[in-house]
């Protein structure tokens, strides 16, 4: 959660070598043999899962491995067959579009509600602040399965939203599956953006607002011409975080609708899972997962670039 605010800097004091025989200079920076030993466990684990896992996944994407049947054991290299299949798969293109909608609505909705609550909290009654802030924080903290269950309960036939519309037999979830899964996703992310924007708003000096109001700017003008531009870096950070977290939230969709009805919520990670373990096409599922990893890797680069860029600017400003 601190990905966005963390900074890559010179890592504190480098302590001189202690395991050296006495008489050597202690102030010289030197490579120590215990350093690789300290890094070894993490390196093995990360290499084993992330590097080997991704490499193996890329390899499997070019085979005809299946979960059951003869090709579960004797699978072969099939070259571009899976890629060819993917490029002619209408569900793949649909899932790309649905992924963009799901993630996009999570980013826009999460940013909007987080910012709205953070701004409104500055001028409203204590009890309301407690209600909205508390609900958003608990929603953010809940495990994904609980989030899915609660929104399933609220939007299924006989649930609170169906009863509120006056027809308790209605199926809001299956009438608008993407809408309700997206709302569940937004609901679970707003607490994070509320915290980010709350902290950013506190860092805006009050005299700026005061000066603007002395010049006769109304609250709307002050918000759009002053507060919002100052919040821009936070908005970028939170948008990148929300994108990554929405992609990771795909379990919510799988739990609420399994990608259905009629592929209406079949976002790419869910489609990958369904091809692999639902239709037994492990190889094709692996390829779809690879596309997903590639997309989130690009986003990861964006996050790193944003973080490094900000640190450099900060250093320049200090120097």
């Amino acid at each position, binding site marked *: 959660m601190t*990905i966005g605010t*963390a900074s*890559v*800097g010179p*890592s*504190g004091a480098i*302590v001189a070598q*202690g*395991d050296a025989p006495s008489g050597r200079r202690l102030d010289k920076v030197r490579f120590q043999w215990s*350093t690789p030993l*300290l*890094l070894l*466990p*993490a*390196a093995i684990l990360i290499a084993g*899962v*992330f590097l080997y*896992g*991704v490499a*193996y996944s890329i390899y*499997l994407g070019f085979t005809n*491995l299946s979960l059951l049947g003869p090709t579960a054991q004797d699978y072969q290299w099939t070259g571009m067959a899976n890629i060819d299949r993917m490029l002619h798969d209408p569900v793949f293109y649909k899932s790309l579009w649905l992924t963009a909608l799901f993630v996009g609505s999570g980013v826009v909705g999460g940013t909007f*509600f987080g910012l709205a609550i953070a*701004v*409104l909290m*500055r001028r409203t*009654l204590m009890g309301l602040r407690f*209600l*909205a802030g508390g*609900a958003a924080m608990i929603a953010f903290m809940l495990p*994904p*399965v609980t989030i899915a*269950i*609660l929104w399933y309960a*609220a939007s299924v*036939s*006989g649930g*609170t939203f169906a009863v509120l519309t006056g027809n*308790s037999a209605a199926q809001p979830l299956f009438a608008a599956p993407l809408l309700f899964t997206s709302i569940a996703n937004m609901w679970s992310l707003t607490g994070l953006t509320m915290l980010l924007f709350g902290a950013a708003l506190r860092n805006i000096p*009050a005299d700026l*607002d*005061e000066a603007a*109001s002395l010049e006769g700017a*109304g*609250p709307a003008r002050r918000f759009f011409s002053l507060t919002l531009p100052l919040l821009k870096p936070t908005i970028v950070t939170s948008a990148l975080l929300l994108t*990554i977290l929405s992609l*990771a939230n*795909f*379990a919510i969709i*799988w*739990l609420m609708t399994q990608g259905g009805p009629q592929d209406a919520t079949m976002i790419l*990670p869910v489609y990958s*899972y369904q091809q692999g373990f639902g239709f037994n096409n492990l190889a094709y*599922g*692996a390829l779809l997962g690879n596309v997903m*990893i590639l997309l989130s*890797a690009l986003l*990861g680069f964006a996050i*790193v670039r944003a*973080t490094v860029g900000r640190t450099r600017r900060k250093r320049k400003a200090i120097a």
Partner: protein
Amino acid sequence: MSTTILGEANARRLSGPQPPDPATKVSPKRISASLVSSNLVLAIIGVLFAIPLLWMVLASVDSNAKWYISWPHFTLANFGTSLQNGRGFSLGISVELAVIATLVATIAGTLAAYAFSRRHLPWKGPLLLMVLFLSGVPINIIIIPIYQIFSQFGWLTVAPTGVFLGVTALPFEIWIIKNFIDSVPGELEEAARIEGARTPMILWRLVLPLSAPGIGAAAIFGFINAWGAFLVPLVLISDSTHQPGSVQLYGFISAAAINYGDIAAFSVLYSLPVLALYLIMNRAFRGGFVLSGAIKG
């Protein structure tokens, strides 16, 4: 705050009536249309956000619960019945998974974070960027190759799944702990070196206690990450009687006969540890940076 009020009073004198400043406190005299609408909008958002939570709390103590929110016929029996049919045991599996994941990620993470923070290391910058990058990759998406590897080695049981969940949290844990160790003054360590302490001693007696809040926060992150995992244990644990609480909770809504009160009660029991840990983590971070007085100067 007082200067703000003064400033606004001046502004009012200068340019006639003004909407109230957002930074001023609400008092009965200053109620305006804009304040009322702010309160109203926040109330609406708050209620909408609270509806799903309200159902969970009310239905869990309702002997006649439904999917919709209703005033409960109070009972505590749901909490007992929700743990029947092996679901109490599944929470034990959740604990096992989360503890293994936490231990793996926190031990490996602390050692690596210490090396990143204090040691001279070639390509340290790019390596750290890679750690940051990996912490943003939702690696659960490549569950298929992991399943294939685990099934080849016969690892489709609870312990290896816990290790895998630990690794998914590892890059972010390294990142948190490294930032925390950075804030511990290096002079303390130098003093210990001069007294003749070696690396294991320094790690155990100095780094560990001084960066305990950061390591604790990272450990809690690892625990919550593993506790909430759903698809990973579903795929990687082949024995259906050894599935964790998350999978059991899902089993409720796919069951033929749905007992709403039990679902809500089990949701509460399954979610409470996570909420409690977040509160602890919050306190740890607040009380974290008290080391500035440890060195003179």
